[in-house]
């Protein structure tokens, strides 16, 4: 019988489902309690084997019990950590898992530093001020947490040069690697002063403690606790995974937002491999953002300030680079998006020119980019920003106007532009995906909504996300019609059924800055993937229902 189980495990391993040592492993289980709550539900319990880059997390149930899937852990010594806002691990700090399994009783104690545990969302909920006061702070999350702001001691005047300096950092900046823009960015003086004045009211410039109550979100329970989360630590803190996707072999590919590498992760072993992308502009910020696959499965990357697109041949594992031609390629040139999904139709690939709020189109035959002004119908003074992109079967482009409130369409043949304002004003649509039924799913970053645009009906639907100040970055519609979304604020992944309105939010084991989200539909249940952009790790979420 044991031989049969091992054989089954070996087959599963070959299929990429479980650890190679599974046949030798037994379950790690236990309980979580504290003096305040006795048995504790909704505590995230994470274990990481000594020397391994892989950490596995489960959630305690209503009886305070947890159990790791037996196949996930092999015998050895595991470090323990927990996440339960308001609490910290009292003990034990580690557990030895033997061949017969292990049982561990985890004790928690009240934390003395609640502020260190708050998510960006919880800070937004806690801090006083109007929605308009808080809105500019959502840009800060691109580079650092809100905690960094509220722990500062700058007064309003001291904040002004800080804000001016930070506005000159590239978008692809993280704490582990700050990158400066070569072309200076315009900064609105009145906006800076207004923001500086507000920040000085929510930080520690006037007192040693915050004069507002720190509010926290509830711990997960019910379906939100029926999940296994796997974190894959990447080998350098300067790896900033932005977009993540899997290939047919189950390997994970990701764009690195600050280093000029394409990353590949083997989720069976946690092994990471970097593919160096040629540096086109040595004195400019490095890193890539959008990662997309074309119809042949080859990967495309938007090269940000390196100014161009990169195509990665999945067979030869080599790059072909398409730099922006010199006439257009100035110091501000930046490509954040790429859309190669229908290049087989006309040999053209869509991208954007962030600095000029423009669409670009690469002709693969000539290697030249054509610039298209998609906002010529709209007012010039308002910030527009073509961002998330999708292409239909005719290679017609649909793009998100992240600076404002529009979905745009560029006709592939005529170049005609159609603008569709979202029902919610100032929604700031961000990333998007087009499903097989002609529905464009996207997030409304500022409006805190998920949304759908039906290409045929030319009509919208919008849904509020359940937690305020979530600021969803991206959404993915899975094979079951459920939506998966994540962002930079809440440390939670939202699973939402637009038919019933039912939702689940999976709390993540640590502070997590999510950008592009991806769902692998080849598993049952589906598997969610994303990068932790500020945490140098790849995340896998496996719902148990």
């Amino acid at each position, binding site marked *: 019988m044991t031989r049969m189980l091992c054989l089954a495990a070996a087959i599963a391993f070959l299929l990429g489902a479980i650890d190679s040592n599974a046949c030798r492993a037994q379950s790690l289980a236990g309980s979580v309690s504290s003096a305040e709550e006795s048995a504790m539900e909704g505590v995230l319990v994470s274990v990481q084997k000594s020397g391994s880059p892989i950490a596995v997390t489960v959630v305690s149930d209503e009886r305070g019990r947890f159990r790791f899937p037996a196949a996930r852990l092999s015998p050895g010594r595991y470090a323990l950590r927990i996440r339960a806002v308001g609490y910290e691990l009292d003990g034990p700090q580690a557990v030895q898992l033997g061949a017969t399994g292990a049982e561990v009783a985890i004790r928690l104690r009240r934390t003395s530093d609640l502020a260190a545990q708050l998510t960006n969302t919880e800070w937004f909920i806690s801090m006083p001020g109007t929605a*308009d006061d808080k809105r*500019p*702070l959502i*840009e*800060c999350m691109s580079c650092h947490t809100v905690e960094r702001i509220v722990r500062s001691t700058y007064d309003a005047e001291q904040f002004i040069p800080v*804000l001016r300096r930070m*506005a000159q950092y*590239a*978008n692809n900046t993280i704490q582990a690697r700050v990158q400066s*823009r070569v*072309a*200076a*960015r*315009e*900064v*609105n003086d*009145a*906006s*800076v002063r*207004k*923001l500086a004045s507000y920040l000085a009211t929510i930080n520690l410039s006037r007192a040693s403690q915050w004069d507002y109550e720190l509010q926290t979100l509830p711990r997960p329970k019910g379906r939100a606790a029926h999940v296994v989360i796997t974190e894959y630590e990447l080998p350098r803190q300067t790896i900033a995974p932005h977009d993540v996707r899997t290939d047919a072999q189950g390997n994970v590919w990701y764009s690195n937002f600050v280093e000029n590498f394409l990353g590949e992760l083997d989720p069976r072993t946690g092994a990471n491999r970097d593919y160096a992308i040629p540096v086109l502009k040595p004195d400019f910020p490095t890193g890539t953002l959008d990662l997309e696959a074309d119809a042949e499965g080859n990967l495309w990357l938007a090269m940000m300030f390196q100014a161009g697109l990169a195509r990665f041949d999945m067979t030869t594992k080599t790059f072909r680079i398409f730099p922006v031609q010199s006439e257009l390629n*100035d110091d*501000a040139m*930046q490509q*954040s998006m790429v859309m190669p999904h229908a290049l087989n139709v006309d040999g053209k690939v869509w991208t954007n020119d*962030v*600095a*000029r*709020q*423009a669409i670009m189109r690469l002709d693969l035959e000539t290697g030249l980019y054509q*610039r298209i*002004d998609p906002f*010529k*119908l*709209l*007012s*010039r*003074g*308002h*910030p527009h*920003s073509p961002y998330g992109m999708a292409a239909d079967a005719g290679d017609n482009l649909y793009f998100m106007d*992240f*600076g*404002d*409130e*529009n979905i745009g369409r560029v006709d592939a043949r005529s170049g*005609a*532009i*159609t*603008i*569709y*304002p979202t*029902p919610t*004003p*100032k929604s*700031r649509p961000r990333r998007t995906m087009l499903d097989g039924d002609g529905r464009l799913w996207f997030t409304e970053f*500022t409006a805190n909504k998920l949304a759908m645009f039906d290409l045929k009906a*030319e*009509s*919208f639907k919008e849904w509020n996300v359940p937690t305020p100040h979530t600021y969803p970055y991206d959404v993915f519609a899975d094979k079951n019609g459920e939506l998966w979304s994540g962002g930079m604020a809440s440390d939670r992944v939202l699973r939402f059924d637009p038919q019933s309105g039912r939702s689940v939010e999976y709390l993540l084991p640590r502070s997590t800055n999510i950008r592009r989200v991806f769902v692998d539909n080849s598993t049952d249940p589906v598997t969610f993937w994303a990068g932790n952009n500020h945490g140098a790790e790849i995340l896998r979420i496996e719902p148990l229902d």
Partner: protein
Amino acid sequence: MSGMIFDRDWLRIALIVISVFAAPQHPRAGGVNFGDDDQGTADKGPAYFGFVREVGGPGIADAKVTASLKAGGALVTRTDIMGVYKIPGVGKDINPDDVTISCAKDGYKEANVVRRPGSDPKDPIETECYLQKE
């Protein structure tokens, strides 16, 4: 009078030239910045708004309303539950005379479009669109 018209046309042409050639060269140097949400109302042209109604009847919800521009391109929105629509944000360099409003809904055909321009060029432009059951 004709001089004023000439001046206005000249200004319009100049603005179009600026928007087509100069504006795309204007380097905001990258993405959305804090405070950007506060900016940008001064450059907007008039909004377009109104009802889509059934001839002799009530407003029609979820009707498609298209503002088509003579130079090409369009803005598309839908009416709310009362049959009201609003199209904001058209550039002020777009001549309102070059914007045509039309409406559509499955099971209906367009019967009539009535435009009620305001006295000031900055005023929102009200256009009622009437649909008739097919």
